């Protein structure tokens, strides 16, 4: 009975809320002047950042369909992509990586200097900037943010990044608008660390940090008034399971060339769908305005109706995501996995891995899986990463004959029925586990299955639920081979440290190493650690080129292909400049605007 009563009042409340919001929308439509959150007047000494993009028209509302519901609004503990997408629009960082140039640019820090030894940075903060609740921002907020990021009780996923040379970075206030950041060891491109680290409002969160409850603050249930940030938007309302609405931050610190305070668009509405297909259907029917990253199949589907529906679709070229096949080379002593241990005779043999790599038809993967919207790969750095790709890596064309010769030289032979057997007479027979939710990777596995059959290998493809797959790869080691993909983070090699360092948590082919298992892994460790402390960019590139060459030579991962970044938006969305770096479409949301007659509050 009580339950029913509660539900009844809830229904009444939502009803009232709906009526009120509809009324509000109607009023806004009639009186466009009464648009939400008018810009705050400029104050004396306010250091604004002037954006040089085309000058737009204010107003309107942008609807974005997210693949899943965000889990938190707390920038410091966020890990999932939907939450990051939302929080990124409400927060700002000190130094920002420009998503188009892939270089750094000033954000809340208007300038910075680096000491000669590369261990000390002095940041000059923008004066007169205010949080979205009107409270002024200064060096105390910066110091507070780093204190929170480094507090072990908070458990921020970014904490490890901020431990340089074994010690947490030290952020000190010099005066209200200057901070000094000291590192225990030189760290190449340290300014890139600041990208996407949201500056928190000390005035709102200091008590929570003192209590040790910061990690639980700003949940999805948090009231709009209790959250403030420095990004272009601030929280307006959240209806669980339906939508999350952001409104423009009237105090935002960027203006356009005509001194109009950004952003242009009044409201940002995030809807929640279950899958990419659902996102595509909503976009196709006009229910959402922007499509961040779709698969090639859906992209081609949309391009058929592009002109009739007035969409702008963009193929941005290769992403930073690299897909790879890898074999289980983990140390299985102490695990009861005799079958897989027997298969490791092949997996640990570099000739075997090279032969597999040589027999894979990468062009077919690009053509069939990515419908031509992808590039074949022979290394971990894709052509999408312009600054860091080693372009001189060998790119051997597919050759079954060469692969067979390689296997023969390594002591493998063939039985009369064509099956490949190793020196001990065991048939080469293994399983590729893939994620059932990723149709693309399962398709790659099915193509590889047919490719390797030509070498006489009997390969089976087993799609598994993603968590079950990950559990096998990182915990139980109960698998032969798998196909996964990495990338999508920063273009800088430092983001790849946890993959290539022999103790790295993503060093999937052989995890939990106490000492490098092979000389070449030791060499990669040395080179990666050296590039980390090398300040000269050209010298770093040289070191990272060498790392890429060693990886390509020893094939711990058999690189397959990188998909293109494919995005779309309504035709009348202007200043739409998607990038191959995450977030692909909304990184310049403060500059987006609607061309034409779309006044505020319509829709």
């Amino acid at each position: 009975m009580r339950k029913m009563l509660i539900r009844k009042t809830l229904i009444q409340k939502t009803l009232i809320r709906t009526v009120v919001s509809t009324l509000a929308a109607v009023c806004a439509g009639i009186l466009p002047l009464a648009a939400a959150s008018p810009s705050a007047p400029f104050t004396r000494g306010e250091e604004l950042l002037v954006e040089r993009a085309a000058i737009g028209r204010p107003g309107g509302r942008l609807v974005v369909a997210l693949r899943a519901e965000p889990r938190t609004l707390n920038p410091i503990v966020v890990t999932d992509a939907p939450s990051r997408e939302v929080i990124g629009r409400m927060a700002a960082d000190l130094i920002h990586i420009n998503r188009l140039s892939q270089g750094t640019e000033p954000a809340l820090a208007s300038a910075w200097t680096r000491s000669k030894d590369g261990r000390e940075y002095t940041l000059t903060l923008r004066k007169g900037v205010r949080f979205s609740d009107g409270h002024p921002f200064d060096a105390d907020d910066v110091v507070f943010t780093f204190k929170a990021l480094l507090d072990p009780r908070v458990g921020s996923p970014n904490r490890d990044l901020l431990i340089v040379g074994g010690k947490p970075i030290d952020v000190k206030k010099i005066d209200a608008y200057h901070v000094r950041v000291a590192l225990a060891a030189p760290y190449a491109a340290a300014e890139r660390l600041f990208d996407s680290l949201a500056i928190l409002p000390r005035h709102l969160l200091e008590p929570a940090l003192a209590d040790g409850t910061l990690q639980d603050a700003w949940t999805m249930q948090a009231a709009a008034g209790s959250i403030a940030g420095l990004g272009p938007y601030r929280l307006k309302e959240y209806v669980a399971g339906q939508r999350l609405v952001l409104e423009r931050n009237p105090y935002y610190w960027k203006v356009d060339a005509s001194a109009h305070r950004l952003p242009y668009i009044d409201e940002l509405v995030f809807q929640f769908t279950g899958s990419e297909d659902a996102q595509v259907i909503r976009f196709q029917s006009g229910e959402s305005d922007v499509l961040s990253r779709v698969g090639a199949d859906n992209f081609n589907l949309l391009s058929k109706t592009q002109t009739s529906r007035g969409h702008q679709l963009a193929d941005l070229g290769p992403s930073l995501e690299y897909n790879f096949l890898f074999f289980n080379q983990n140390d299985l002593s102490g695990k009861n996995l005799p079958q897989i241990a027997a298969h490791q005779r092949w997996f640990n043999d570099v000739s075997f891995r090279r032969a597999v790599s040589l027999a894979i038809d990468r062009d077919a993967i690009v053509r069939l899986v990515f419908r031509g919207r992808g590039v074949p790969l022979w290394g971990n750095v894709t052509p999408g990463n312009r600054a860091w790709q080693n372009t001189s890596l060998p790119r051997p064309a597919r050759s079954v004959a060469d692969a067979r010769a390689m296997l023969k030289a390594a002591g493998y032979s063939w039985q009369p029925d064509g099956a490949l057997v190793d020196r001990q007479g065991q048939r080469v027979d293994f399983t590729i586990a893939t994620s059932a939710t990723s149709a693309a990777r399962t398709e790659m596995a099915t193509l590889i299955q047919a490719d390797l059959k030509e070498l006489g290998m009997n390969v089976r493809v087993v799609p598994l639920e993603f968590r079950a797959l990950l559990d096998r790869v990182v915990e139980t080691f109960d698998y032969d081979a798998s196909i996964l993909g990495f990338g999508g983070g920063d273009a800088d090699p430092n983001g790849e440290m946890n993959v290539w360092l022999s103790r790295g948590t993503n060093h999937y082919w052989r995890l939990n190493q106490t000492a490098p298992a092979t000389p070449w892994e030791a060499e990669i460790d040395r080179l990666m650690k050296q590039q980390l402390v090398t300040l000269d960019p050209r010298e770093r590139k040289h070191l990272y080129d060498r790392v890429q060459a060693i990886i390509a030579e020893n094939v711990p991962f058999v690189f397959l292909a990188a998909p293109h970044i494919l995005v779309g938006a309504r035709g009348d969305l202007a200043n739409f400049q998607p990038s191959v770096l995450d977030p692909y479409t909304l990184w310049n949301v403060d500059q987006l605007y609607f061309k034409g007659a779309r006044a505020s509050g319509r829709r």
Partner: protein
Amino acid sequence: MRRTTWIVRGLIGLHLVILLAGFAAPYDPAVQSRTVPFAPPARLHIVDAQGQFHLRPFVYALTPDADGEGYSEDTSSRFPVRFFTHGARYSVVPGFESDLHLFGVDAPARVSIAGTDGYGRDVFSRVLFGARVSVMAGLLATLCALVVGTALGTLAGFSGGLVDRLIMRTADVFMAVPWLYLLFAVRAALPLHIDTRAAFLLLVTVLGVIGWARPSRMIRGIVLSAKERAYVLAAQGFGAPPLYVLRRHVLPHTYGVVLTQAGLLVPQFILAEVTLSFLGLGVGEPEASLGSMLGTLQQYHVLASYWWMFAPAVALIGVAAGYHALTSFGHERARLVAS
């Protein structure tokens, strides 16, 4: 009566085609033709590009369009459809191999009468081979379920008492268990790779084990009512042994029900195989089953762009409709016998 014989003939024909899938299918169901992914069904022509008429139907080779979507026909050379051609090897029964196919065309053209899938595999061939797996699984599982169901149902109904209660409560439990979730758990506990034959047997066993409860309850009911009939009691009174009574007087009453149940269970189990394969619990790639083929329709772009990928659904409807017709035929027969 005439109508039903036609249904039976049609069903037998369908099963023959499915059984001889290797002969009826022009291609190996697992071979990928990577130049023609998602090619639409081949168009059979009798009039060529010059407007000339040809008695023997022919196809043209396909060339992909520049945008990578869709194909156009290369009308420079004709490829007539030939019958009894030699192509990919297949085995009809283990030990007997052949490479004779009912029809085909010369390479490089292909006669994919139901188009190709995302790997360029022939959908028609895959439907035939897939139906072989699905229908065979349905038939074997039905046999399994009915044998177990009849045996236990008869035992329960005839002996009564504790045995009856024990069997029927077990049947209740079997009907109450949420099988789908249990199957997921079972699949997760099994080793990563199960070879196709083992997966197939597993499928049949699972379906049979799940399916015995319902028929066993019905059979028990019939046995219960039959054993109270006057002539059964009379036979027992004359000292007929229980097995004789069972065989001679009781079991014949159940034949109608068993037949009807068979007609109902076969399509039901075929559909169950589809569900299980759809969820990744059936035979794995590159082997085909109707369920795994329908699984690709989960992707929106396939659903929206490639209508020929519905071919397995059409086959499924045909087979299921045939069996349902057979069931009503069985009903009529049962009524005739009863009267």
